[in-house]
C-alpha cells in the first residue's frame, strides 16, 4: 500500500512537472537561435567565404553546431578570442588552412581595385561579389565601390584577365592611428 502511495505521489509530481515543462516550452518558445545572432555579430561580415561557408551567417550557424571557431581569416585572433569568450571554449590559433599569406601587408585592410585598361567587361567579378560592391555591365568597364568593398578577395579569382588586385586602403587622417612609439609630443614639463 505504501509503495503504491509513493508511486502515485512521485508519478503525480512527474506528470505535473512534465506538464509544466511542456507548457513552458510552448509559452517561452525562442524564435531562432540567439547564439547564432551573437556569433554573427562577432564575425567581421566580409562575407568572404574563406571559412568554407557562403558568408558570415552560415559560418556562425556552423559554429553554433560545433564547427571549429578558428576559420575566420579576416576576423583573425580578435574574432577567435571573442567567439571563445562567448562560447566558453578555449582560444585556438587561427587555422593554418585559413590563414592568409603571412607577408607584412596581409593584416592591412584592403580593397579591390580594377585595372581599368585591362577590364573586358565580363561581369564575372560582379557575380562573385558578396556585397554588390562592383559596378559595371556586360562589355562595360567595371569599377569597385571602395566604400562598400569588404576586401574579401572573392572577385580576384574569377577575373579571366587578372585585372583585379587587392590594394591596401590608403591611410588618411580619418583612419590614421596614433602610434605611441612615434608620437613626438613629449613637451610636458
Amino acid at each position, binding site marked *: 500500500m505504501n509503495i503504491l502511495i509513493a508511486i502515485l505521489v512521485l508519478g503525480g509530481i512527474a506528470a505535473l512537472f512534465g506538464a509544466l515543462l511542456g507548457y513552458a516550452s510552448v509559452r517561452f518558445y525562442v524564435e531562432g537561435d540567439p547564439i547564432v545572432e551573437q556569433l*554573427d555579430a562577432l564575425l*567581421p*561580415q*566580409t*562575407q568572404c567565404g574563406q571559412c568554407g561557408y557562403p*558568408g*558570415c551567417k552560415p559560418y556562425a550557424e556552423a559554429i553554433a553546431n560545433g564547427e571549429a571557431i578558428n576559420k575566420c581569416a579576416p576576423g583573425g585572433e580578435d574574432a577567435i578570442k571573442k567567439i571563445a569568450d562567448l562560447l566558453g571554449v578555449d582560444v585556438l590559433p587561427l587555422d593554418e588552412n585559413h590563414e592568409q599569406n603571412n607577408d607584412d601587408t596581409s593584416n592591412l585592410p584592403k580593397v579591390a581595385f580594377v585595372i581599368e585598361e585591362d577590364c573586358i567587361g565580363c561581369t564575372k567579378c560582379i557575380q562573385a561579389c*558578396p*556585397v*554588390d*560592391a562592383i559596378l559595371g555591365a556586360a562589355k562595360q568597364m567595371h569599377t569597385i565601390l571602395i566604400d*562598400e568593398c*569588404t576586401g574579401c578577395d572573392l572577385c580576384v579569382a574569377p577575373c579571366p584577365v587578372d585585372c583585379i588586385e587587392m590594394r591596401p586602403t590608403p*591611410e*588618411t*587622417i580619418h*583612419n*590614421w*592611428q*596614433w*602610434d*605611441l*612609439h*612615434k*608620437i*613626438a*609630443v*613629449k*613637451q*610636458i*614639463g
Partner: protein
Amino acid sequence: MKSIIERIKNSKFWHFHGGIHPPEQKQLTTSKPIKHLPLPKQLIIPLQQHIGSQGDLLVKVGDNVLKGQALTQSSTPMAVPIHASTSGVIRAIKKSVIAHPSGLSELCLFIDVDGKDTWQERKTCLDYTQLSHQEIITKISDAGIAGMGGAGFPTHIKVNTKADIDFLIINAAECEPYITADDLLMQEESESIVDGIKILDHILKPTYILIGIEDNKPQAIKALQKATESIEKITVCVLPTKYPTGGEKQLIKILTGKEVTSGSLPIQSGIVVQNIATCFAINDAITNGTPLIKRVVTLTGQALAKPQNLWVLLGTPVNYLLEQTAFINESTSSNDNCSTDSLVTNLPVANPPVIMGGPLMGFSISNELVPIVKTSNCILAPSKTEMPSAFDNNSNEMECIRCGQCSDVCPSQLLPQELQWSAKAKDHQQLTKLNLFDCIDCGACAYVCPSQIPLVQYYRIAKAEIRQQQQLDMKAEKAKARFEARKLRLEKEKVAREEKHKKAAAARKAAMSKKNADGGTASSAVAAALARVKAKKAQNKVSDELRVASCEQTNNESSESRVTNSKTRRDTSNVSSEDEKSQVKAAIARAKAKRLAKANANIKESDEIRVTSNEQIIQKKETDNTASDKKARIAAAVAKAKAKAREKTKKRQETLTVPSNETQEQPDNSKPNSETK
C-alpha cells in the same frame, strides 16, 4: 539664474575639479605688439582646415586669385570655404603635409604670391542690425569662420540655433602655457572683439554675455573692461589662473556652476561658448567683408631669438615663421629635410622639435612646410634646457605607482589610472564604461605623473582605436545588410526565373496541345489514307495470280499499317515534337504509298517477276533516304541482277514464298527505324 549673476557680480565663481598650475611662460611674448609680416613667397592652403568635410574646388592650376577670393565652396552644412590669403597664381593643387599629428599629406593649394596683395571687391556693412538673422549666418559661413580655439567647429552651425540662450560665454581664458595670441589680440583689438560679440548678441539674443578671462592678463582685462563699459549685458569675469580653465565644459562650470553632462552639448543647457578670436573674425567678416584669411599666432620658445605674436596669413609655412623669428637651431643636424615630402616620424632625433599648439595639447610637426591653418594658435620651439623631454626620443616611462595624482588633477573627474590599465589592455568596453570620451585631452594627468607615463597619449590612441572600431562595426553592419539584400535579390531573381520558365513551359504546352489536336487528326488522316492505299494495293494483290504470297504480303502490310497506326496513336499521346514526327511519318507514308504503287505497277507489268519487284521494294525501302535518281539507278541495277537470277528463282518458286516473307518482314523491322529518323 539671478543667483548666478549675483555670484558673478561679486566675483565669486565655482570651481572645476582638478587642474594644474604649470609654469606659464607667457612673459616671452606678452609685452611685444603683434607684428605684421612681409608676404611669404608661397602659401600652402589645405582644403580642409577644420572638423567636418572639405568643400569643392572652385579654382584650377594657373588661375589668378585675388586676396579674399573663395577657393572652395561648401557642399555640405558642415563645410566652410577657404579663401586666398593674398593675391597670386595657383601654382599647384597637390598633396602636402598638413597640420595634423599624423604628419600625413592632404590636398593643398599652392599659391605663388605676386606681392601686390590685391583685394577682391569687399562689401562692407556699417550697420549689422540691418541684416537679417539668416544673412548674418550666411556671411559667417561664407567667410569660412571655424572655431579658432582649437577644434575648429564651423561657427555658423554653432550660432544658428533656435534654442533660447541664457548665456553666451566668450572664452578668453587662454589657459595653456606660452600662448598669448588671444591676450595680444584683446589688448590691441578690444573694440573689434566687442563689435563681434555684439553681432553674436544680435543673432543669439542671450540673456547674459560672460567673458571668461584668466587673471594673468591684466592688460587685456583692462582693455576689455574699457570696451564693454557701456554695455550692461556683458560681464568680464576675471578668473583665477588654472589649467584647463579654457576647456569648454570647465569654463561653463566655473562661470555658471552648471555641469554639461556626458554626451550632451552646452547648447542643450542654453549655453553657447565662442572663442575670443572667433568674435574678432566674425566682426571682420560682417563689418569689413573680410573672410578668415589671417590670424594671430604666438611664435615662442627659447629656441627663437625673437619670440613674438604675429599676424599670419593662413597657409604660411611654419619655416617662414621660424625664419622671421630667428630660429636658433641647437641640433647638430641641419634643417635641410624640411624640403622632403616624405613623412618624418622620428623628428626629435633628426630635428629640434617644433610644436604646433601649446605645450600640453599640441603636437610636434614632422615637416616645417606645414602651413598655418585656422586652428593653429601657437608655434613653440623650445630649447633643450627649457624642455628636455621634447628632445629625448627614449621613453622614460616607468611603472605606475598608483599615487593617484592623476585623478586628483583630472578636470573631467575620470580615473586616469584605471583608464591607463584598460587602454594598455585594449579593453574598449571597459574604457567606454570609464567614460574615456569625456576626456578632453588636456594632458594634466601626464603632467603630474611621477612615473612619466604619457597617459594622455594612451587615451588618444585608445580613442582613435575605438572610433575606428566603431567605423568598422558600421561598415560590417552595412556589408551584412548588403549581403542580405543581395541574397534576397538573388532569391527573388531565381523565383522570378523559375516562374518565367514555368509560364513559358505552360504556354508551350498549350500551343503544343492545340497543335496536337490538329496534328493528331492530320496524322490519323494520313494513317487512314495509308491504310486505304494499302487496302487497295492488297486488293490488287489479291487479284494477282500468286495469291498465297500476296495474301501473306497483305497480312504483313496490314500489320505494318497497324503498326503505323498504333505508332501514330502513341505519338499523339506523346507531347513533345509531335508535329515534327507526324510530318516525318506523313512523308514516310507518302513515300511508302508511292513505292507500293510502283510495286503494284511492276506486278501488273510482269506477274512473274513479282518476287523480283518485291525485292525491288526492299531495295527501294533500303535506299529510302537517297536521291531519287540514285534510287532509280540502283533499282534498275537490282532489277537487271534480279532478271538474271529470275530463272533460278522461278525454279525455286515454291520455296521462295518463305524467304520472300522473311524479306518482307525486314522492311517492317526497318520501318520503325526509318520512322525514328
